[in-house]
């Protein structure tokens, strides 16, 4: 549990996005997204910054997942993979250790559109949690104790 809540993508993504039964691993769109949102807030990433990344994530789907992609089990084309790799060079990613670690931990596991969808959902969920955190006051250590 402590491992799960560490918020380190290298740990919670060490076995990929999906469990053996094919379902998305617990926490990918739950506590791990929340932990990511906390990290992003502490890094000072704005909602606009994350929105910009999510827009790029979505654009890759529009540009590279054609009408042939039906179930998501189809492999991502070379062009799609190249575009995915380039996400890591975006300014909001290079400025954020949290986003960099998520993308690098996810990279070995993203082969099909279904894998890509899991990553996208993870980030999108973190975005909605970051939006919620934005309206909560940020307590200092002293206040927390």
């Amino acid at each position, binding site marked *: 549990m402590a491992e799960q809540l560490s918020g380190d993508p290298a740990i919670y993504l060490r076995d990929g*996005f999906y469990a053996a039964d094919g379902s998305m691993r617990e926490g990918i769109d739950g506590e791990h997204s929340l932990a990511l949102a906390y990290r992003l807030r502490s890094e000072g990433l704005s909602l606009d910054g994350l929105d910009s990344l999510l827009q790029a994530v*979505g654009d890759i*789907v529009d540009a590279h997942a054609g009408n042939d992609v039906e179930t998501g089990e189809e492999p991502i084309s070379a062009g799609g993979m190249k575009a995915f790799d380039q996400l890591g060079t975006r300014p909001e990613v290079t400025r954020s250790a949290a986003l960099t670690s998520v993308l690098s931990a996810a990279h070995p596991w993203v082969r099909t559109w*279904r894998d890509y969808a899991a990553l996208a959902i993870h980030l*999108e969920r973190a975005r909605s949690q970051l939006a919620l955190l934005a309206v909560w006051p940020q307590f200092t250590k002293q206040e927390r104790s």
Partner: protein
Amino acid sequence: MTQIRSCPPGTAAQVTQQQHEPAKAIRGQTLKDVARVRNVALRDLQAANPQIRNPNQKLRAGQTVNLPPTRGVICKATPTASGQSDTIERVRPNLFAQVTRTGADTQPARAWQHGNATPADRQLRESAFNDVMQGVRNSGAQLDAADRARLQGVLEGQSGEQLAKTAQFFKQHVAGSPNALQAARTFLDLKEKQAKLPASVAGRLNDETIQTLTRAVADRRGPALAGAKGIMGQQQALDAADAIAKMSPKDHTALDGLLRSAGTGGARGADPQTERALILKAVAARRDRIDTEKAGRWETLRRWAGRNTNAMNEVSAYAAEIRGKPREELLKKSTTLDLNEDAKDEALQQRWLSSCGATVTQMARAEADPIYALDLHKRAAEGIHPEKITSYEAVHKSQVADEQKKMMREAGVRSLRSRGQESESYWGTNLDTDDKTKLLNSHVAKHTNKTYSYKQVEAGRQGLEAALNRIDGNLRRGGDVPVLLKSGDEGHYVLLSDVRNTRDGVKYLVTDPWDGKTTWVKREDFLRGQIPVTGGSYALRGSFE
């Protein structure tokens, strides 16, 4: 009373008596209410129901109330030279005007093709057909020959238990409905869709689902005439069917579970059918987000990852929230209009002097999407219709008012005056028709699955007739039509949500966001340019369809 005193030349008067199926009381209704709603004299209703001694006594939900027969006069045409005769029946109106041509238009469109059917099946088919015809006729409408032929085709394709179930369904749920025509057409359209579905999803639009959707169109939303419209419109039922056919297996499993658990574990008065109707209405309002072919990239990504769409998650949360709630409460919170005509102001009101356009946008969206309607009720902590519309709470502490303000800002309107500042010389800026069209397309279109455009009324009576005929068509298919009224230089947006043929002619149900009143206005008043709203007299200038 529209009973005719004499018959047109060339016809002979013949007195007739028409029997009616008993009515089912809605919980809390009294005999007096039934008399008012059915438009029959209380003394006649009491005579037909001697077992109910006190006309003010509250009836049980579903309690049978016998309806007195209506007497009328048939003007039977004398045979013409060609040997054909025509009959025009004019009976005392029951709920609606019944000036209906009988004869050819209530008869089968073609000879029955019974094949090897048993005599019992033949009889069932014909009686089911007659029940539908009678129901449609009672609602003041008629099925055209093409629809009658379609109905015959459906009935001819059924036999035995399935046919008996269909016949029973028509008798119970379509024949007595003021929306019998729309319900019958919905049923026929859905049966056609069912036949065309690919085998992989054919089971999704089964007879049970078709009946649920047809009932959603047939079942009225309240006992008063303003509540005569179905919970869903005809087009919404078809949109729901499309969504069901094209949603992902994951979403379909979720929806199936929601429909099965409707009405369970709740209070007395819970009504599974009403819950199912509202759940399916919510699905229809999200058709394009649920449909795997039309869904946007994020809903598609969720599907690829084996998740329910966010749209279906919204429907699931809604279903859980309404589960087991009494029918009356469900219906009240699924609209922002005043549908019970109880002389209390209950429709949503504009909180700013010039926010009628924004308020009508909220109303139109709420009429299409029960989730948004419920949300408005929850957000209007001070009530959809606050005690005092000019109070500080009703305007400055209200999320409903805030949303109206946001919509006005979105349309570029910067200057707003709150209610209570009527004496000011400047009332703020109203939306022009372009702004209003944009608002409808950004807030309502995604729930009604259509694109709005403004249609200005052409000058003259012919132009008005043409506009009203078009609006009629939209309303009869279950849509709502925002319209622009004018009185001198002053413009005002209101919502039209129903049309009925009444004994006083055709009437439109108009909801005025200024005073929150929902009232019937005669077509003649529209044609004369004397639409009585907000205490003034307005003319129809255009509609958003």
